[in-house]
Every structure is written in structure tokens, then in C-alpha cells.
């Protein structure tokens, strides 16, 4: 059964230094609050997994929590580069970051294989691409029936998967909807899982065939309203596209990034406090502009 617990305790007890951790979300439902908590608690040597590492991974990498990234597309969607990710790969700052790079199809299949308790994923993929030349974990096998050549990559089996969802009930059953990405597969592929939710309700009122993760398949459920911000939760919030644009200059230089992270993450106690400081900053800025 999932434990309904504060996020701080869930991260503290379920995420260990050196773990392989997937904080998944495909633009929608990205678990930013949980990412901040990982940074606040100073977790180290993590192998991060994610199809689409974006701002929260830029922050975790820039704060030196990760030693490796397994991914298929790393950018600030609609804006441009992840400057902290690039600095780690291009300059080794704050330290060297190993990368294992795939395509989306490869990663999606690797999560499915992980959730299916298979050692590797099989797909038609990577043909003609240089990715297999730089990633020894992309190999090719022969179909035993047709002789056809198919791509094989190891399953993704995280120690911990972290996602954000819309609702949980009081027993810890979780309901999510909208753009689901690989979140269900990522939870079922992992040994442990943390799910932050917008609200905890008496009855999920989930239509038949909805995406429900049963309480017994989840380790911890944490009530963090707005915990995906600046990503969004369909039915609860809109994506704050301006934050994504504003992140670009913050992440461009090491000093500005570190000062921002100290003020907004390290020196705040939780996600609500982060949002309070962020809003204070926005209001201060508005005041300055009007003076």
C-alpha cells in the first residue's frame, strides 16, 4: 500500500545517493516539487533517466546531484538549450556528466520492457543513425523467425520513479489523465515510486479504463498542489510558458544560476515556500518597473 506522506519524508526515505532515478513527465505533469526536494536534500551520484529532460533536470544537473543521464531529448521546449546540461556535457561543470543517449522510441520501449520484467526492449529503430556508434547499449539482434535485424536496448529499471498526478484517494490509489507520456510504465518499471498529487479525495470517480495506478503498486503519495509548476496538471493549472522563457537567462551563467537556486530552492523549506519567494521576486520586479 502506498504511504501517504509529506514529500520531504518520501524523498528522504526512498531516494538514496547513487540511485537510478526517473522523474518522468512529457511536458505535462512534470514533478518539479519532487525535483526541488532532491536538490534540497543534496542527493548525490544519481543516474537520472528521462525521455525529455527539461528545466528540473537542468537544475538537478547544475546543482551537482547527477553523475549520469540516460535520455532522448534534452532541451527547453519551444525555447532552446538547457544551459546547465550543456555546461556539464561541454565543460564538465560542476562535474563530468556521463550520457547515454537514445531516441524517444528506444526510451519508450525500454520503459515498457522494464515494466514488463524483460531484460531488453526490441524495436525497429536507430537504423542509419550514428547513435549506435556512440551508445554501446544500442545493439541489434536477429529475429528468430524471420531473420530480420531489430534494435535491442536494455530495459529501464529505475530504483525510484517520481511522477506528478491529478488525484489520489485516501488509500493511495492514483488517477492521472491528459498527456500521459511514459509515466505509468516508468512507475511499474521501478522498484520504488513517489507520486505527488494535486489533491487527495474520498473517491477518485475514475471512469472505466482510466489510467489508475493502484495503491499497492506505489510506494508513496504526497499531497503537493501545483507540484508540477511551471509544468501543468490538466484540469488544475496551465503551463507557465513565461517561466520556461525566463529560465533561459537564469541558466546561462553559473553565478546567476547558483544564486537563483540558493534563493528559490536551497533557502526555501518546501514547494509552497518556493512559490512564495518566486512570487515575491515577480512582484518586486513589477514594483521596480513601475518606479
Amino acid at each position, binding site marked *: 500500500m502506498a504511504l501517504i506522506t509529506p514529500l520531504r519524508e518520501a524523498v528522504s526515505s526512498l531516494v538514496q545517493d547513487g540511485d537510478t532515478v526517473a522523474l518522468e513527465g512529457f511536458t505535462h505533469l512534470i514533478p518539479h516539487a519532487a525535483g526541488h526536494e532532491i536538490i534540497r536534500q543534496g542527493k548525490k551520484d544519481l543516474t537520472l533517466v528521462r525521455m525529455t529532460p527539461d528545466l528540473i533536470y537542468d537544475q538537478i544537473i547544475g546543482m551537482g546531484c547527477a553523475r549520469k543521464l540516460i535520455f532522448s*531529448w534534452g532541451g527547453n521546449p*519551444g525555447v532552446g538549450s538547457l544551459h546547465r546540461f550543456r555546461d556539464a556535457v561541454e565543460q564538465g561543470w560542476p562535474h563530468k556528466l556521463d550520457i547515454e543517449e537514445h531516441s524517444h*522510441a528506444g526510451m519508450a520501449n525500454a520503459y515498457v520492457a522494464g515494466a514488463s520484467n524483460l531484460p531488453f526492449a526490441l524495436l*525497429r529503430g536507430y537504423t*542509419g543513425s550514428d547513435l549506435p556508434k556512440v551508445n554501446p547499449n544500442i545493439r541489434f539482434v536477429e529475429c528468430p523467425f524471420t531473420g530480420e535485424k531489430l534494435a535491442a536496448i536494455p530495459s529501464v529499471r529505475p530504483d525510484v520513479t517520481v511522477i506528478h498526478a491529478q488525484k489520489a484517494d485516501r488509500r493511495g490509489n492514483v488517477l492521472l489523465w491528459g498527456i*500521459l507520456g511514459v509515466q505509468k*510504465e516508468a512507475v511499474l518499471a521501478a522498484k520504488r515510486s513517489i507520486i505527488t498529487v494535486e489533491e487527495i479525495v474520498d473517491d477518485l470517480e475514475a471512469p472505466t479504463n482510466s489510467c489508475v495506478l493502484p495503491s499497492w503498486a506505489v510506494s508513496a503519495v504526497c499531497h503537493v498542489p501545483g507540484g508540477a509548476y511551471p509544468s501543468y496538471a490538466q484540469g488544475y493549472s496551465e503551463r507557465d*510558458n513565461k517561466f520556461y*522563457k525566463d529560465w533561459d537567462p537564469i541558466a546561462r551563467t553559473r553565478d546567476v544560476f547558483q544564486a537563483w537556486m540558493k534563493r528559490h530552492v536551497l533557502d526555501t523549506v518546501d514547494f509552497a515556500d518556493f512559490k512564495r519567494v518566486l512570487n515575491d521576486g515577480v512582484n518586486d520586479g513589477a514594483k521596480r518597473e513601475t518606479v
Partner: protein
Amino acid sequence: MANLESSNLEFSATEIMTVAASRLLQDGTVCFVGIGLPSTAANLARLTHAPDVVLIYESGPIGAKPTVLPLSIGDGDLSLTADTVVSTPEIFRYWLQGGRIDVGFLGAAQIDRFANINTTVIGPYDNPKVRLPGAGGAPEIAAQAKEVFIVLKQNKKAFVEKLPFITSAGFLDGGDAREKAGITGGGPTAVITDLGILTPDPVTRELTLTSIHPGVTVEQVREATGWDVKISPDLKVTEIPDADALAALRDLQARTAKAHGQSTSSEG
């Protein structure tokens, strides 16, 4: 040139690129759409001559009909307007690998003469000069869609003699190299730029300038290409954007800018 002079329409190089790209998409086509320029062109097609085009985004929406252009691949508008939203594994397994995509519509950071695409890295992979976002869905879209359109701006940094990295296969070394490698989809059929349209030679598969936008010279195209670009002996002048298409494009972009709170220039 006569076209341009006799017309009262004024349009930018990006606008004719977008309109020319959208015209290639026929009504009823099932199109796997990349974010940015491809998404703009595909939605313009949907709003003009191709109302029944089916737009599929890799985040899961099938039959998306966004009211404004998405800033990201997973904007809420995509899922709220879609016929259905499936998981990302399902998109890649059942819909793309399953052979249900007519057109893959891609952008690129760099391209070579055989329409191979780089979105991974500039410089050596292990010691990159510029680390780009990476593959995303492109390698399998480029390989498995029945045909592929590529839209990007033409200049020497983007149109290079040799790619530092092939992220997604076009025609590899040309000729029948793509088929020999076992790639099932038909590959790129058009590269639409702000200067013209290039299509692969039927035999060598080398990109050839087959249409040039009004007001652009062949010399400009040569200058903007990192190899000695082939020019078709039957070079056509791209039809200018009609007033309806331009109005629809500008309206869409104005709606988008309003919805996203500022300019959409980051998309292009």
C-alpha cells in the same frame, strides 16, 4: 519575378517557407508532426486546404486541432482538441512503428546533400562544440513514415558538406543505401527552406533545387549551401502565398503570441 511585381502581397522569407511547406500536405494525410516550423506548417494546412489532415504529436495526441500553436510538444491545447490521447509508448509502437503514418514532418539543425539530419551535436560527440537537444522521435519518424518533409532555414551552417553526426537517416550515402540498410519508410521527398524547395534526385537521391522562391536567385541558394548544390534544369518558381493562406498564418501567429504572452519567434 513578374509574379511578385504584379502582386500586392508582401510576405517574408519565413512566411513563404511555411506556406510552401503547408501546401505539400494533402487533405486526409496522417502526419506525425515535430514542434516548431513543422507544427506551424501542418496547422496552417489544417486551417486552409487540408481540414481533414490528421495531426499526431509524439506526446500522445492523435488528431490534434490546436487553436493556437503549441510552444511545447505537450501543451494542454493539443490533448484537449485531439480525437484521442494515447501514451507515448503507444504512439511509437502502434502508430509509428505500426506503419500508420503517411508523412513525418521534421525540422533539423543541420542537413547534408542526402537529407540526413543532425540534431545531436556540433563538433566531436565526446568533446562537443555545441551540444544540441538530441534525437527525440526523429530517427524512427524519418525511418518509418511513408515519406518525410523537412523544413529548415537555408544557410551554410545548416546545409553542410559533412554532418558531424547523423541523428536521423535520409538517404545515407545516396543511391540505394537507405534501402540496403533495411529502412522501410520512403524517406525525405521534400526539403522546404526560406529560399526554395529541394527534392531528392530519383537515382542518386542527392538533393536538387527544384523550386526557387520568387525574388531569390540561384546564386543566393549556392551561397547558402555548404556543398555544390545541384540545380534542376526544370527549376520552377514557387507559387507565391495566396492571400487566404497568408491571412490564416498571420492570424494563427497573432493568436499564438497572445496566448503565450509574447512573441513566438522562439519557435522558428
